[in-house]
């Protein structure tokens, strides 16, 4: 394992008013590894993911991307200055995100969705962006759908386009926020297959999921969240085979019935 993790989360906390959603979460994600986050609804998994790329601003704690703190460096007198948005945007480029609701832009074609950020954010030339987009669409097995509008795709296809869109930014890590939760069961497999292939290719991934089979077979580490804290963590064999926490055992027995 390398010294600097791709993503390091240190004592992350998030309150929404009086509600404490995250209560001090710390973990590392090493390059090329896949971390799955499981836990009941409301345990803070999605909020944690959204704090990592700062779609939510953490109340306390820090996230390091390749050793660089997202919240801004500490000054000589020990104060932490919030980074300007342009800085955060630069760091966000390195974190691809896939959402539960796909969030494709409906007014753009499939290829338009995929080239948009490379064009406007990475400032690539159109030709190069299209070549890259075609490569990414091939990785999600949708090469033939480039000229379609999202409204004409199935949910599984939309989610695979969303994955291609995130890949096109050539991120250092991918964040998946319950990518199969709004899909019909027969469509989840095509998305999970793509995710397994990415994992096998050595993509660094954090996956919030209710798919226990994926968490067990495809990830290097599993975190079980409960009430905004990591209740159990370890390699999948350990978490699924011999969980130390009673709550984790209960959660898994319900899920695996």
């Amino acid at each position, binding site marked *: 394992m390398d010294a600097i993790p791709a993503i390091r989360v240190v004592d992350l906390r998030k309150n929404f008013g009086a509600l404490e959603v995250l209560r001090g979460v710390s973990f590392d994600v090493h390059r090329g590894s896949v971390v799955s986050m499981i836990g009941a609804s409301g345990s803070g998994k999605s909020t944690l993911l959204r704090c990592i*790329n700062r*779609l939510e601003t953490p109340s306390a704690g820090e996230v390091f991307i390749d050793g660089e703190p997202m919240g801004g460096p500490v000054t000589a007198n020990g104060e932490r200055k919030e980074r300007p*948005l*342009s800085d955060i*945007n*630069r*760091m*966000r*480029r390195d*974190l*691809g*995100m896939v*959402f539960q*609701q796909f*969030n*494709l*832009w*409906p*007014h753009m074609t499939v290829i338009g969705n995929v080239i*948009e*950020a490379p064009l*406007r*954010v990475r400032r690539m030339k159109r030709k190069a962006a299209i070549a890259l987009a075609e490569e990414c669409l091939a990785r999600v097995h949708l090469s033939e759908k480039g000229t379609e*509008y*999202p*409204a*004409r795709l199935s949910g599984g296809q939309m989610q695979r386009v*969303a994955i291609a*869109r*995130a890949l096109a*930014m050539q991120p250092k890590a991918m*964040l998946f926020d319950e990518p199969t939760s709004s899909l019909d069961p027969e469509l989840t497999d095509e998305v999970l297959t793509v995710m397994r292939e990415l994992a096998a290719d050595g993509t660094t991934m954090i996956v919030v999921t209710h798919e226990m089979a994926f968490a067990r077979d495809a990830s290097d580490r599993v975190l079980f969240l409960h009430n905004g804290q990591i209740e159990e963590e370890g390699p999948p064999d350990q978490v699924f085979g011999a969980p130390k926490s009673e709550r984790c055992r209960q959660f898994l027995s319900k899920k695996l019935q």
Partner: protein
Amino acid sequence: MSEALVDALNPALFWEYRQVLLRGLAFNAYVFFSAATVALIVGLAAALLRVNRAWPFRWIGTLHVEVFRNAPDYIMVIWVHFVLPLLLGKLIGQRVEFSPFASAVIALGFVYSGYFAETFRAGIQSIPQGHLDAGRACGMAESTILWRIILPQVVRRMLPEAVNQFVSLFKATTIVSLIAVPDLMYQVSMVTQQEMRPLPLYTGAAVTYFAVIYVVAGSVRGLSERWRNKIYA
């Protein structure tokens, strides 16, 4: 039909003056496009103020919308042409005068900016938060998100409503003759004074406005539907 009625409705007179009347209609179009441009730009600015997070901005945007949406076109045209120059003149200690055309464009542009602001605002607020999150997650700047993700969708969503407002604005351009903008109605009044035959002239004007609005609005609606349907299959 009596001969008198046929004679009264005879459109020959209207045809005889076609050039002058057509020039008037061109002025309507000129006022319309200028005022529509003002209304769209000012309306978008007001809408962006209304969806701003900081309450002073929201307050200014709301004030703008309420003032202009509730002001009658007629009074605004008169006020901008006769009162605003006086006020400005007193303010800078110099004589100020607006051309009738400029007054018409400012007045109608601002009145309709109130309506367009509300249409823009509704459109902006109807864009799912997730679309913005997806842009932010890719590292897009907020301005890129506005121009590439929000506005292109807003325009599609607001088109049917906007076409109605454009129709109202075009109809409203007929009142600019009151401050001597030489539009179609103004020309009709002039010719009527000469010929003393209001019936064919005013009827002709009404039919002309109807035909122009019916044909143009109809084709715009048709085209925009085809364009919108692509993304809402």
